[in-house]
């Protein structure tokens, strides 16, 4: 059974995410686009003359390693949600099957 409503809602999310990419198509980091707000905050603070008094204990040595770790983070979350929802779906199918076979006996 396909959940049409879920697909429609997820498509809407896709539109929200894709729209800025299409809107600023051709512009990139060099033109100051698609940088992270989490970086802009510190940049502004440093421009006021503040120097951070503590540095990260460990930093991913490159952008590749950083994206690896972000992907791992998302994967951990996705596998848990997939497992639980799959388990719940199986449970609900089994309940339905039992109910149907009980009805046949009656």
């Amino acid at each position: 059974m396909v959940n049409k409503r879920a697909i429609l809602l997820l498509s809407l999310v896709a539109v929200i995410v894709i729209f800025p990419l299409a809107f600023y198509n051709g512009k990139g980091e060099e033109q100051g686009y698609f940088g992270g707000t989490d970086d802009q905050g510190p940049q502004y603070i440093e421009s006021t003359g503040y120097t951070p008094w503590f540095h990260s204990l460990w930093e991913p040595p490159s952008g590749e390693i950083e994206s690896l770790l972000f992907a791992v983070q998302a994967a951990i979350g996705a596998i848990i949600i997939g497992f639980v929802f799959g388990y719940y779906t199986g449970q609900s199918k089994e309940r339905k099957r039992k109910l149907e076979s009980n009805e046949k006996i009656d």
Partner: protein
Amino acid sequence: MHIAEGFLPWQWCLFWYIVALPVIAYGIIQIKRVTDEHPESKPLLAVSGAFIFILSSLKLPSVTGSCSHPTGTGLGAVLFGPAAVSVLAAIVLVFQALLLAHGGITTLGANDFSMGIVGPFAAWLIWKGARKIGWSSSLAIFIAAVMGDWLTYVTTAVQLSLAFPIPTFEAAFVKFIAIYAYTQVPLAIAEGILTVVVFEYIMKLRPDILVKLGVIKSEDPEIVKARTEAV
């Protein structure tokens, strides 16, 4: 909303730790209580944490031309209450601070205050209020998740303006709101929609747990309908 390592004066780091720690401690007690009382809610607690893991790792482009990430805390706040989410958010923030150099250990208290306390608390309040005036669960959780996400970023802007009132608090606030809050609007809406999708699945598959957790009352027509469909 991650305030980077070392980017708050130590007095503020300490202050936000002192504010956040009691809530986290209370959250741990609350999680223990709810999982003891209703062991069958454990998978949903895992889903709430996992949802935060996924959403806070996705840096999405926004119409303002910068990227930011959702928080994913609205779902857990509605299911388990804001204190429990402060614990889940702390786990994610520690992971990101140690492995990704994203956020930091010194700013953990401040970041948990915005993402794990203010956002979820707002989401929880909005959910309760919207349900009280009779909004459907989907609409209520949508607004709750959107506002929880957005207010997290507003809180970050307030925290930074308090720490760096240059030249004044108001001027700094205008600057930080421009960095954080506008970019976040479409992303908060995206988070709201994703939260609705996940919540509707839970509603369809295990409405019984939602009743046990007190998220929805057992006599609610939506639950009665979901129960007859789920068998």
